């Protein structure tokens, strides 16, 4: 076979390979070419983060505004310290509150932000002061069972 024919076929082969890799990264892995997407980092401390994971979404009014970038246990006060990267086009006031919510009853967990009324905005590296922890289903069931048992106990005392 002539060398140019071989070159042509190998060229087509490589082009197909590049197209396949592009398809995999853009269409399958959804790599949006945002490049150096500008974000700023905030952190929040929770009593219990439940099943929150790194890369979980941060939502405000249901809109994804950032991602969880790091989770660690702060050994000074034994609270979970969660770092979040927020898209820099969104600014939040200093009294914004963060809570860990669950998508559906057993879905993945995410952080919900609720805007406060303060005039000043949170600056990069600031702490989100008002937080509420994850709802842990087992604890909830436990509380329900205890109150149920207490309730029935009181009932039995009264004739």
């Amino acid at each position, binding site marked *: 076979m002539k060398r140019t024919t071989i070159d042509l076929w*190998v060229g087509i*082969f490589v082009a*197909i390979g590049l197209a396949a890799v592009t398809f*995999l990264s853009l269409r*399958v*892995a959804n790599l949006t070419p945002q490049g150096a997407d500008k974000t700023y980092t905030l952190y929040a401390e929770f009593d219990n983060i439940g099943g929150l994971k790194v890369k979980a979404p941060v939502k405000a009014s249901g809109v994804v505004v950032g991602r969880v970038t790091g989770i660690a246990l702060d050994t000074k006060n034994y609270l979970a310290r969660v770092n979040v990267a927020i898209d820099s086009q969104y600014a939040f006031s200093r009294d914004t509150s963060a809570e860990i919510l669950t998508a559906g009853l057993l879905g993945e967990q995410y952080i919900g932000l609720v805007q406060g009324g303060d005039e000043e905005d949170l600056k990069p590296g600031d702490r989100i002061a008002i937080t509420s922890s994850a709802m842990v289903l087992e604890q909830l069931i436990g509380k329900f069972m205890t109150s149920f048992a207490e309730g029935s106990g009181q009932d039995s005392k009264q004739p």
Partner: protein
Amino acid sequence: MLDTLLTPFIRLGHWVIEAIRRLGFISRFFLAILMNSAQSLTRFHLVIREIYFAGVLSLIIIIVSGLFVGMVLGLQGYTTLVRFGSADALGALVALSLLRELGPVLAALLFASRSGSAMTAEIGLMKATEQLDAMNVMAVNPIARVVAPRFWAGVLSMPVLAALFNVMGILGGYYVGVILIGLDGGSYWSQMQANVDLHVDVVNGMIKSLFFGAAVTLIAVFEGFDATPTAAGVSAATTRTVVTSALVILALDFVLTAFMF
């Protein structure tokens, strides 16, 4: 009497020594290929020629089998997922199983049986017809001229073939899941995009296929080079290439998976 008692041990010892000799030979052979690779880079058309034979001619089998594997995944995945009411996750299931395991492994197995065996037979016949010796006489290094281009062609072709296999599989799953069964096309893609990570899944799959390409072609050229220079020897070497490659691919896959995921 003593001899017949000792025969199994003699066989075992011979087998172990032979296995160790071949392991040592293949390691030194690998080093020799790496050291004689400069010529493959300066005369790149040698590699391009081998990419044509190893890669381009494997396109059809990769495309067709990728499509069918994807269609089977779509069908089987659907029948299982629909029982749990999560048929919408079909896209994620098909994409993840292809990208992480099936794509690289099956593409490498096909590549070993189609191109690896051809490489072994070709080099083995060159040895049997004393072409390699003739090259040596003409002061042409057969490892640099014959073996290294084939090795690099295999290493370069394998990720391309695996990526193509993945794409065809995902399209095959789309065909069965969305067009035949009637799932929502939007959720097929969005579930896939939400669950597939570029680095963890796509890039690691590519790295896997690079390793498989190197392993398969190394085994193929080694078996050809080590073949007994007779018709029976070449045929035995070709069989060994396919069997050893399959075992090495699956074992290597376990090791790489343990490291990556």
